[in-house]
């Protein structure tokens, strides 16, 4: 990228919105998935939609790939820079533009932090429902890109359920509006396609969100089981009884130990811990909680505790939400996996994970959203021991294959990003992926917007058919051609 282009970009964001010194660029070399790192050519921090448009127009004119970035908490490498490309950080666009209580809508810029939306509306007893574990730092723009879930999506749905409209800068720099404050705007559901497209279809610059009235009460129950099998059976029992809890979370013994060590949530020490949360009208919740209690007992729960106050409930959740980070207490290194299985396959998949772990000589901790079958097996290893990192990665991939074989998905909420694009062709057939690519071409015919993510690359991505040219990833020593 020549200096002329850098000057053009600098002029758009008035100096302080451009980062190009090598030391500062290191901050942006990866997101929450740290095993892929690429230094971008520059990072732009626009302060307005107009600036985003101008930047993207320059990229379009000069054929420069760009990657949008929110808080950089993603766990699949979705915000990994593209070599010789730029990163567009939306961190400065962090205003909540409008809150409309009569219609239960909020209009926000992409850099707004997830939890700040709830913070802004909680006095009126509303909340923003999607609650990824990183909600105190992750941005709404990033949530939109990844279609983030969270523990409560079992009842409340995902980011896509709560995004009603979007202002988007398309990869050619044009500005378009998907959906709106009203439902069912005539035409294709472009907001539906855009949410979860991992930054490959453009950049959201304004997002219309649905906010939700707080339920009358929330009750949480902790049940300790001998193993995850009994806990899993209890989950099936709850579902079979016709209940739709706000959340059902499960942790195995390793995960419990880690959470205890990290935040002292006072969890019972057991083989399988179930956290069930119900919300709604008091009379309804109390009746159903009694029922949940019975189901847990009849499936062999050795101990059942009700979180009696909001403080107790918060502590229960703190242990669960800290579970990933807590692994650092029991293992020097770990890989966070994100796979989904039909809930009925849980016992089989769990025993298979255990078998694979033993065969590899590695421990696997399990934390999952049991209500919707979203597993987060954490493969523990020690990088200092030669070969163990490779073993851990191989094991993590095998677990993903188990999920696919069980009829599930390679990702429930973390996204495909850079990390799992190789696995897309295991989950989808060639015509399925080709159809998605056709949709992508309608948005981004030049493949400039986060071009190397999501889709498997038979060729190295970004490469034009025709005579051999070294790919940017090759010249920068990141990729090799075999």
């Amino acid at each position, binding site marked *: 990228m020549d200096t002329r282009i850098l000057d053009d970009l600098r002029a758009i964001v008035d100096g302080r919105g451009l980062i190009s010194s090598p030391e500062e660029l290191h901050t942006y070399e990866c997101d929450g998935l740290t095993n892929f790192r690429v230094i971008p050519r520059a990072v732009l921090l626009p302060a307005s939609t107009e600036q985003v448009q101008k930047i993207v127009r320059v990229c379009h004119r000069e054929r420069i790939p760009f990657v949008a970035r929110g808080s950089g908490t993603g766990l699949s490498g979705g915000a990994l820079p593209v070599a010789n490309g730029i990163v567009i950080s939306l961190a400065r666009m962090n205003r909540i533009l409008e809150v409309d209580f009569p219609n239960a809508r909020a209009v926000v810029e992409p850099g707004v932090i997830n939890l700040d939306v709830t913070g802004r509306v909680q006095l009126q007893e509303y909340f923003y429902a999607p609650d990824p574990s990183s909600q105190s730092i992750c941005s709404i723009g990033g949530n939109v890109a990844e279609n983030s879930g969270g523990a409560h999506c079992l009842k409340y749905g995902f980011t896509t359920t709560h995004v009603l409209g979007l202002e988007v800068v398309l990869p050619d720099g044009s500005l378009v509006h998907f959906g709106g404050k009203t439902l069912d705007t005539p035409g294709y*559901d472009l907001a*539906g396609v855009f949410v979860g497209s991992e930054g490959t279809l453009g950049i959201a610059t304004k997002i219309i969100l649905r906010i939700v009235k707080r339920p009358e009460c929330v009750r949480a129950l902790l049940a300790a089981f001998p193993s995850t099998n009994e806990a899993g059976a209890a989950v099936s029992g709850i579902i079979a009884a016709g209940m739709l809890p706000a959340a059902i979370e499960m942790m195995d013994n390793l995960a419990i130990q880690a959470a205890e060590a990290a935040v002292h949530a006072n969890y019972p020490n057991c083989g399988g811990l179930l956290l069930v949360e119900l919300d709604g009208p008091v009379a309804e919740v109390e009746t159903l909680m009694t029922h949940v209690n019975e189901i847990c007992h009849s499936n062999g729960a050795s101990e059942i505790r009700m979180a009696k106050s909001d403080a107790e409930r918060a502590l229960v959740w703190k242990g669960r939400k800290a579970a990933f980070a807590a692994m650092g207490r029991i293992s020097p290194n770990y890989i966070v996996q994100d796979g989904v299985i039909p809930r009925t396959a849980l016992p089989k998949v769990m025993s298979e994970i255990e078998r694979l772990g033993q065969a590899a000589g590695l421990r696997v901790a399990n934390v999952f959203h049991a209500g919707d079958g979203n597993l987060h097996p954490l493969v523990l290893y020690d990088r200092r021991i030669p070969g163990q990192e490779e073993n851990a990665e191989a094991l993590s991939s095998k677990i993903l294959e188990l999920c696919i074989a069980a009829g599930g998905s390679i990702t429930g909420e973390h996204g495909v990003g850079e990390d799992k694009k190789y696995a897309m062709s295991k989950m989808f057939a060639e*015509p399925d992926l080709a159809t998605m690519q056709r949709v992508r071409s309608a948005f981004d015919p030049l493949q400039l917007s986060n071009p190397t993510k999501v889709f498997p690359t038979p060729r190295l991505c970004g490469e034009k058919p025709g005579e051999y040219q070294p790919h940017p990833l090759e010249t920068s020593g990141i990729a090799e051609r075999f």
Partner: protein
Amino acid sequence: MDAGAPSKTATVISVDEQFRSIVGSDHVRPAISTDSVAGVQPKLVVVPGNETELAEILRVSNDAGLAVVPCGGGTKLGWGNPPARADLILSTARLNRIVEHVWADLTVTVEAGCTIEKLQEVLARHGQRLALDPLWPDKATIGGVLSTNDSGALRLRFGALRDLIIGVTLALPDGTLASSGGKVVKNVAGYDLPKLATGALGTLGVITRAVFRLHPLPRKTRTFAISVSDVEQTQHFIHVVQDSKLAHTSLQSEFSGQAPPISHILFEGTEAGLDAQEKQLRTLGGSARVLEAPPSVWSARQEVWTLTDPENRVIAKISILPANLGQTMELLQRTAHANHLRWRALVYATGIGCLRLEALPEALRDTLQSLRRDLERQGGSLVALHRSEKVPVFDVWGNAGDTLPLMKAIKHQLDPRNTLNPGRFVGGI
């Protein structure tokens, strides 16, 4: 298709044999007058027996330059603009299997031609349902309901089809069978094409099967009718309920030029929960009359469609901001009064409503267009669903906004020869 174009007629005859070889002679028949699509007469009706056959019929038609109208139960075949061309009706009537109901996972995989009623019957055996109440469930099919994005009163609690569909298989005009989404509720791998297909009116591909997340059937239900004196009080009541801690499933209000408005609310849950909510509702209702009502009030939308005088009626779907309900109904009343129209509207608390206008044909067109302008000005929309033949033709969709070029680009990518439902969708797509 232009009926006077002999070359096209010849093409139809030559591909006719191919169709027969794909699906068998019993499943290809000449179209008759009752098969006409919004006044356009197709030539053939082809009924494939599985999704491979369907994709093959589509490919052959596409290669031959024929225009294809996908069809399920045919209950909403008139929705959308009249097709620019229509050569064959591609019926999903034989793709009617429930492939897999994994009740313990609360999911179902079902073929496009299965009726809503048949699906719900099977799901109910395990105490479950597809939490959707579309029109004419006895005839309407999964594919048709998805393509038209039909939804009713349950949407307030359970969302629309976009929130219930988790996987789809589409047959594209080039014969590709492409799946996306999956069989699990939580899944972010790849683009969300189930949502793209939902509400696309069959213009991008033919839905051959879909996977849905399910909900338990309610243990108990209770419905109440709430009567207040005027539109303003209705708006106030709706706002109070929506801003409360009530966990109602549905909330709808009916308006007309003849009678005072009436609202209905549905609660689902345990006996104890229902008692408590009833008490709260009565407190919130204040001076309003609150009476228990029969569940039949939830078919009010279908009643709006009961056409005793179809010649002089239009039916439209409106979408407004919930807080604009009062002003919209007052606008309707004023407009109706000025143009001597009879009207009836059913509006859900989501802001989506169904509107019936009765008057002389020209007055209907003009009134609808003027109403649409007013609603669009407030960020809403109005889509005409039924227009009798005497009502002068007008675009049923309204303004597509700044996304039309992108929508056309998507259409071009998936259906470059404009084979599927040409001219029926937004902006001439």
